């Protein structure tokens, strides 16, 4: 079992209102790898993530997450969806929000136990938010809220993280800080990560593999090959050139910080 892929999709199609929004998607992801999912607007990237989480039904094909069909019963997946900032008035502290990630391990009549509180404290420390545990979540900056959501996902699972546009709305320094944090967590915990982003360059610099979709599969491979492929340009329906050394430049900035 240890050599089996963490995620496996075979011929997956998804329909919405009678129309196919995803067609024949197939790929697998091994443990400890970081898969970036890219594609133009409306390509079905978020739908693909939601199908992997069991939030949308599939019309054809098969999805396996840790060898089982996807669904919320498995405490194996941590999820950070695309979202706007939390309302300033939402009456929860950072600690309250992170503790929500433990809820599926608790029975209806159970209160959080010492192990749950320790898990929250560890997750907050890992994302560098331990000093803000009692702050109202709505008063944090966008980058800080994103870290808290990552801590919540780590409380839910330290095996697989699924992230939808995790850096949307963040400026460049905050984006780089987020990816640096993700990189260190991946190395420390052996996380498997799947992330959707419209920022092709940033994701190509971070991911071990890229898959590009636009309703159907266009290309899957290592980032260097994918970004220079004709299939990528076909998916986006435009020509663009990456400046020579741009991804290396991105990495250099990351290390200096």
């Amino acid at each position, binding site marked *: 079992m240890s050599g089996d892929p963490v995620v496996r999709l075979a011929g997956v199609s998804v329909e919405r209102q009678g129309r196919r929004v995803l067609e024949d998607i197939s790929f697998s992801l091994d443990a400890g790898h970081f898969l970036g999912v890219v594609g133009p607007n409306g390509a079905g990237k978020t739908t693909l993530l939601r199908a992997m*989480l069991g939030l949308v039904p599939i019309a054809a094909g098969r999805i396996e997450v840790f060898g089982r069909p996807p669904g919320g019963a498995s405490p194996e997946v941590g999820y950070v969806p695309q979202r706007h900032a939390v309302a300033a*008035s*939402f*009456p929860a502290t950072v600690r309250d929000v992170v503790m*929500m990630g433990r809820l599926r391990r608790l029975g209806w009549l159970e209160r959080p136990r010492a192990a749950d509180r320790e898990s929250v404290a560890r997750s907050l420390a890992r994302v560098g938010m331990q000093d803000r545990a009692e702050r109202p979540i709505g008063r944090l900056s966008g980058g800080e809220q994103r870290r808290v959501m990552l801590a919540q996902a780590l409380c839910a699972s330290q095996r697989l993280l699924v992230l939808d546009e995790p850096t949307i709305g963040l400026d460049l320094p905050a984006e780089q800080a987020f990816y640096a944090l993700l990189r260190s967590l991946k190395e420390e915990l052996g996380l498997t990560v799947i992330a959707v982003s419209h920022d092709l360059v940033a994701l190509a610099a971070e991911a071990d593999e890229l898959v590009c979709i636009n309703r159907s599969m266009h290309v899957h491979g290592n980032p260097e090959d994918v970004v220079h492929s004709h299939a990528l340009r076909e998916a986006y329906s435009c020509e663009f050139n990456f400046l020579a050394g741009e991804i290396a430049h991105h990495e250099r900035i990351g290390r200096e910080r």
Partner: protein
Amino acid sequence: MIEFAFMQRALAAAVLVGVVCGALGFFVVLRRLAFIGVGISHSAIGGVAIGVVAGVSPLLTAAVFAIAVALGIAAVGRRSALSEDAVIGVFFSGSMALGVVLFSLQRGYQQDLFGYLFGDVLAISGRELATLAAATALVLIALAFAFRRLFFIAFDEEIAQAYGQPVGLLNTALLVLLALTIVIGVRLVGAILVEALLVIPAACAALWASGWRAQLVLATGLGAASGVLGLALAYWLNLAAGASIVLVSAGLFFASLALRRGGPA
């Protein structure tokens, strides 16, 4: 005032209703369910009228009818292209019109209708008070049971669903609890004003506190306090009891607004 048995019962009812409306009102304000609450509360008139015509407990039929309307609003809203407020408007106006028509077929039309529209807590019997207490306990126990999960859904419904929480079931349960709470409150302040007890104490609490624990305690306390102070005001000044309760609640809100213009610390 409290030496009279009817006032003792009325005060007990006011405290019970204030507490349960404050507790559920926390979610009404948090999840912006105020207009659904208005729709359900006005529809209770239709349910009461069915009970009067059928010769069964009007509050029992109101509870069943209000739950049906709450679930109907949710179902039609999901399945149709109409906006939620349009769906609510259809249900509540239709239900209330049904109630008025049914009442018009009965003798004693204005007396009965007025009591259910604006509350008649001073006439509450010991048996009714016991029923109200039991219903309040049921709602509070259910809310306590599901609170953490309801709060998670209020924070992010998609994440809650991804982590295996029964979102559909819990949203339905919240609407059922809302309908039951509204019917509990009809006896105190009437169908027209019960929504105020769901919204105002919780909104007031949000001005004073930033955390859910403090907001819950404040909302239930302010709800109960509005009931007691409002009844006292009505007793001493010979005013309509239900409306006095709501006026006190509104007064507490505006005073809080003036004192806490910057919101909670």
